[in-house]
């Protein structure tokens, strides 16, 4: 299970932008773009998967435990079911649970986090303690316990459990952000002019928290997808619904490993990892949008190594001749000797070497 590689700590301190910012920059980030394209692909499969699946995922066939072929791109199960169809049909369940759970958790985290951060005092202490408790109690075992006591473990029930137990991380990050926003001038100004608290929260705070909320939402989707797949895999969730975890459950319980039927569990796992990567990439984009320091250097920047404490020297113009141009105008001491003479000549003789030192080390 991935731990949330979050924007949390990084964003806690740099300023969350005053609302208007170059939003297209977010979309121009190649990481974000890659993530969004992959995610769009999965969403498409989730919508049309059941229609384009070549076989009924539950239908048994004559070809038992066959490796991938043209008829069965991902091979077949022990009972001849088409694994490709199972993956296509299963995408919907995974995404529906992931996004529903994240929606529930997102709303909860905004309500708890922003309220705690904005109120301060006793209310904050109380709400923070509650979210810290939820944060410390191991989430997956708790979800397993609750789910196994429930009589109905359909997709929505699972989503609800994940959402109701998985909001604490987002709440924590939002609280920290709200705390730092609360004392900004424009919020204070709104307070001073007598705006109501809900109005300030909705119109002054939330717009500046959008990126953090989005990042928390995506993080929760990742968590929810993994939790959902895990619950199906260990047989807690309803195994009559197809999702990628169910595929893995059947593979595991039918000894796919021992039989060398790698095609039975590899596609589902790759899909989970790919979906998770796509979501994580989107989150990196958000992190870098919030905190530009995290951005990886672009292509042109790579030519020169940017290093803290050692500003690179890249002489753009051909070296000036010593003593001409700017120097004549400059010499602020007036009557002092021409300083350019000796040393400049030496440097002018080997243009470009100074760049080399920084870049080619």
């Amino acid at each position, binding site marked *: *299970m*991935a*731990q*949330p*590689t979050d924007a*949390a*700590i*990084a964003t806690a*301190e740099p300023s969350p932008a005053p609302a208007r910012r170059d939003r297209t920059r977010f979309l121009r980030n190649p990481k974000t773009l890659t993530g969004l394209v992959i995610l769009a692909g999965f969403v498409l499969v989730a919508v049309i998967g059941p229609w384009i699946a070549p076989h009924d995922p539950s239908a048994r066939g004559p070809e038992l435990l066959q490796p991938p072929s043209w008829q069965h791109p991902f091979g077949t199960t022990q009972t001849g079911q088409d694994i490709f169809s199972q993956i296509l049909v299963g995408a919907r369940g995974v995404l529906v649970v992931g996004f529903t759970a994240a929606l529930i958790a997102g709303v909860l985290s905004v309500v708890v986090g922003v309220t705690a951060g904005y109120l301060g005092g006793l209310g904050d202490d109380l709400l923070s*303690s509650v979210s*810290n*408790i939820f*944060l*410390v*109690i*191991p*989430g*997956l*075992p*708790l979800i*397993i*316990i609750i789910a*196994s*006591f429930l*009589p109905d473990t359909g997709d929505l029930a699972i989503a609800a459990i994940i959402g109701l137990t998985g909001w604490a991380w987002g709440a924590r990050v939002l609280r920290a952000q709200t705390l730092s926003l609360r004392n900004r001038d424009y919020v204070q100004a709104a307070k001073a002019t007598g705006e109501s608290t809900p109005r300030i929260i909705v119109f002054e705070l939330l717009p500046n928290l959008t990126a953090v909320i989005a990042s928390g939402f995506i993080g929760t989707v990742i*968590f929810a997808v*993994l939790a959902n*797949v*895990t619950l199906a895999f260990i*047989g*807690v969730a309803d195994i009559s619904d197809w999702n990628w975890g169910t595929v*893995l459950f059947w*593979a*595991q319980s039918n000894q796919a*490993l021992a039989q*060398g039927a*790698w095609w039975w*569990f590899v596609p*589902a*796992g790759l899909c*989970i*990892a*790919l*979906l*998770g*990567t796509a*979501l*994580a*990439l989107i989150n*990196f984009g958000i*992190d870098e949008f919030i905190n530009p*320091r995290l951005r*990886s*250097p672009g292509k042109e920047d*790579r030519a020169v*190594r*940017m290093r*803290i*404490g*050692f500003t690179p020297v890249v002489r753009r113009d051909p070296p000036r001749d010593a003593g001409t141009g700017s120097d004549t105008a400059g010499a602020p001491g007036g009557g002092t000797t021409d300083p350019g003479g000796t040393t400049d000549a030496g440097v002018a003789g080997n243009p470009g070497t100074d760049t080399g030192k920084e870049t080619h080390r």
Partner: protein
Amino acid sequence: MKYLLQRLAFYAVTAWAAITINFVIPRLMPGDPVQALINRFQGQLSTKAIDSLYTLFGLDEERSLWQQYLDYWGNLLRGDLGTSFAFFPTGVGDIIAESLPWTLALMGVTTLISFVLGTGIGIYAGWRRGSWLDGLLPVTTFISSIPYFWLGLLAISVFAVQWRVFPASGGHDASVVPGMTWGFISSALYHALLPAITIVVSAVAGWILGMRNMMVSVSSEDYVLVAQAKGLSERRVMFSYAARNAILPNISNFALSLGFIVGGTLLVEMVFSYPGIGYRLFQAVGAKDYPMMQGVFLIITLAVLAANLLADLAYMALDPRTRRES
């Protein structure tokens, strides 16, 4: 000191919350789950087990909810976690006591290794931002998105089924008797290697990413610039100034991520049929062995709280601002 007391109070409250959640969950379930269970076990349950089921679900009409809660606490304090259905009449406590050392060893060692390794690589990746190490980021992202258990399946299929270099399951060779003998210990280590590698590979990616980002953020702090201006050696600036500060939030993160890590580790145990409490939980889920599940949940939570406390102590040792009030 004040900081430590605050944390201890918080853990006490959290432990109370976890225990109470454990008490409440069965009582919130609709219908008559006991009858459903009795039907499911088709008369294999003894009357004693049925009695304990009624107690568990709070369907014991004679006692008030408050009385039940007190009983529950009384049992807990006596170390009585109830009786396992699946291994009737063995106590849940006994089974956990037998499984816990396996889990603690596996989880403790792998968590420590992945934290140290990931933090170390993260320090370099963050310090040398823009170098080839940045090329690792997409790879680590991908790896950290893979579910632990699936990586375990993959590892088994490659190293245990295809190449047969590692055992596919179990905690030790069936032929050796557990004990403080060289034969047993080497067998246990051999069996633990593949699950351990799986966990480390899955977990290390997250630490690399987290530490790298912290390093990047801290590197632009004024005091790092001052350190460079002072002409200190690169080692000193990187470790004593940048990494030394960047690791603080990473330790808080460590504490908060423990819950996630534990979840992943339990699943690896399930996949490898490793005789720890994760595998017990898996068995309990399959057999609807509620007392067992609850016992495992409680023990895991308490273990995570203890680990959190250790992380807090480490934090206090590393950050002078928590030690004394100015």
